[in-house]
């Protein structure tokens, strides 16, 4: 039994949190489109960025789950690598998008902290899988 319960809990939490985050982002996007002057090109860019983030995040969480439950280090590694584009995506919404709303600052902050915890526990997981490798 090498699977990490903490990592599993984090992933479980993150899966729900991220979809909430995505919903909020969508709502905020509509809000900004209505309330603020928005060049169409940047809006498209942000939409693509958002879709990209969603895909990456879904894949990351799925791989993390899979690796943790099957006690395979390879999917966890993939999940760990996918954390990089995912965090860049969140940082984009935190810092570099056209208008940063205070609500987004809060949401992105939580998402980033979740990501960082997952990095730690994913690493712990991988190490433990390698140590007690079953052939």
């Amino acid at each position, binding site marked *: 039994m090498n699977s990490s319960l903490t990592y599993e809990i984090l992933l479980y939490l993150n899966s729900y949190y991220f979809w909430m985050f995505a919903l909020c982002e969508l709502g*905020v996007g509509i*809000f900004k489109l209505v*309330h*603020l*002057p*928005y*060049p169409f090109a*940047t809006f498209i860019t942000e939409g693509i960025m958002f879709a990209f983030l969603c895909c990456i995040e879904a894949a990351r969480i799925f791989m993390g789950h899979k690796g943790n439950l099957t006690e395979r280090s390879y999917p966890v590694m993939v999940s760990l690598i996918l*954390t*990089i584009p995912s*965090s*860049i995506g969140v*940082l*984009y919404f*935190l*810092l*570099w*998008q*056209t*208008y*940063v*709303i*205070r*609500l*987004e*600052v*809060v949401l992105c*902050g939580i998402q980033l902290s979740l990501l*960082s915890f997952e*990095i*730690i526990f994913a*690493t*712990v997981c991988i*190490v433990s899988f390698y140590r007690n490798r079953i052939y």
Partner: protein
Amino acid sequence: MIAKAVAGFLLLLVLSEAASQTVGGILSVSPSTGSTCGVGSSDCPTDPALDATEIPTEIPVSLETSTSTSTEPASGNDSTTPSVATTAQETITQSPMVTSSKPNKGSSTTRSPPRKLPTTVKQPEGQILGYALSETCACDLMAFSCDINCCCDPDCTNFQHAAFSKCKVEGYPPYDNRYCYASKLVFLNNSEHILEQSQSGAFCIVRSNLAASVLYPSHPVFLSLQDFLRHWDRTHTPVWPELQAAPISVVEKPKPYSAGSPILLIRNSQSETFDLPASRLTAACSVKNAVLYLLPWSSKCMRKAPDGQHECDSVSSYIHYQLQNIVRSPLLVNQTELPSETVELCPENVCAPVTYFICSGSKVEEDYYTNNCKNISSKNVLFGLKNGVCFGVVKRLRLLFHHNGTDGILHIEAFMWLSNISLSDYSVTKPLHQSFSVQFKWARLNKTVGTITKNNTLNSMVEHAPFPRSGNPGYLIGQPVIAAFRVKQKLSANSSKDTSKDSAKLAKHDTIDLSHDPKQWLTLPGSNMNGMCDVTLAQRHIVTFGEDLHMSCGIAVSPRNISSHFSCNALRSRLLQLLLGDIAKSFHNGSFNADWGRIIAAFGSANVSKPQEWVPLLLDSQPPFTLLSEDSMSTIESKISNEDKLSDMSIDHPLQMCENVPLGIQLQLMHGRVGSPSNPQSKIFGAAMRFTPLQDIGWPCTSAACPQKQDALYLRVVSTVKFVDISSPAVTRFAEPPAIHIRLPPDFFYPFMATEGSSGASIHKTSMALVAAFLIPLLFI
């Protein structure tokens, strides 16, 4: 392991920071290399507020005047060099990341306008607020010279910069409250401050990376007149109307006098407006105010005593001259030929006749018709300077215009208070007080007078004399409270014999005796110049509606006045006289109970024919003394004088004490609004009067050390008035639905009942029964 992970996370952060720099650099359109840093104040590199990425704590907006002197102008070289600009930009773009780790975010402070360093370059964050940074230098007004405190002036050297105290601000960001940290320009004591406002709420913009700039679109220059005119028409701006090519010598047709039109006079065969001196802003007679027809007017002003021919004329003969030449009606000016310039006097048919009254030294302005004023011919009065004496200086002038509407002025009554001032001995510094008042009175046409005299008796004529209401119907604030007497009507035999219905009605109620003189209404004792109570009627203060009052005056009581019971009574009577004025006389018969017949008009219109509109002036409590009749007063006085003689001989045992002396009067009135809230009318609901305080006065002394007879005891008589508004909030009331009286025509049941007759009711019942008997079976069919 964990350390590794942390390190990786940090690496990620660093990476993201690097990314932020690059992305920020990409997104922000780098502005042209202007030399201004902080057009938008809040965007100077050192400003952390806009770069805050933390959740800002809510701190109320506070104003802080920064007293710090401006940052020293940096020793950098010419700001416009591109190399400096790029380096500066780099440092600035890095700054957000540096500051993001700092605390102290989300506060809002005011700073004095940004200090612009000559070498600093506009930073890209200037775009955050969505305005364009100006490339101009508006404070550089003097070309080829260094403008003071204008940091962007290229003519200034660094040496000159050192002399600056601050940098003038170049433009301000437009205030946008959608941002969490909006900055706003405020002026505090005429000095500019930038208020940075932090906003609470999750949907404010913390950060904006959109490089949008708000600019006015420039318009192409018009090169052709057609183009110009077409655009002009588009603006829908009318040009100034062209002057009509009318003959210049158009003179307006003379219109008859109407209310508010200036009164004309003829001077040197030209018409002028009639004006009198008045004061503006100061007490001096600085302006001339045109007297307007039918509008009562008064003025008081002060001027230097005349010290020359011109000054003397302006205060004496000029006014007289003006009065003599007042035009009856403007219509008459053109109809009749004006006299030539040599003729001084205005013809009788054009100018209104003036009756002069010379009044002497009366204090009371109301007493015009008393003996103080004498009708006098103007020829007998000397005006102007003669032998060093200025004759006929007008100190007070009251003009009464008898007019007849548009027919103009019929005649003028001029009441003048004149004095002669000798130029030589009169001190120049002593001022001359002048007061003028103008009043208008409808002239009674002979016809109407005739009809009135035919129909009514002389008494009713008196009733029809103009009566100044205190409001119609409700009281107006500041108008006198109207009081009258309820006279008990005694039904005598001879009066009831020859009466019409009206008089019979009146006999049922009591008649109301209302004086036309406000001094006979509710009055309080006034004081003379020494602060002592003035017994004369003229000096009494009239109680006005809605104005609370507390006034006092002094009264001297000599030991003789409190030496015996009789004299005490006399003193009380004297004080009551003082407190109540003439009213005290009217109930000398001694009955001093609550039903003393004094009533107050509930409404300012004071309708005598409606007794229900009068409320009694309630006496709070029966004073523990009785008033003495005039006869008894005289007897008492004689007794007092007798006693004086006695007391002169035997002064050893004086009374030394008077009990229950009324030393004040207290009036309480309750009023309220009635009617609709759009036009509320004030009504007096009740009034009460009490004599307070009732004091025992005397000398607190033993018989040995009692005061001398000459000493007087000075008492203070206090009279107060208090109004209370007891009106309750207005209530909406709807009209009741109309009661429907359905009545059948009398011949509805014709065949069944007789149409008329005394027994109609019973027949009606039987016929109804018959009808029912027919109809009820019909229902079942």
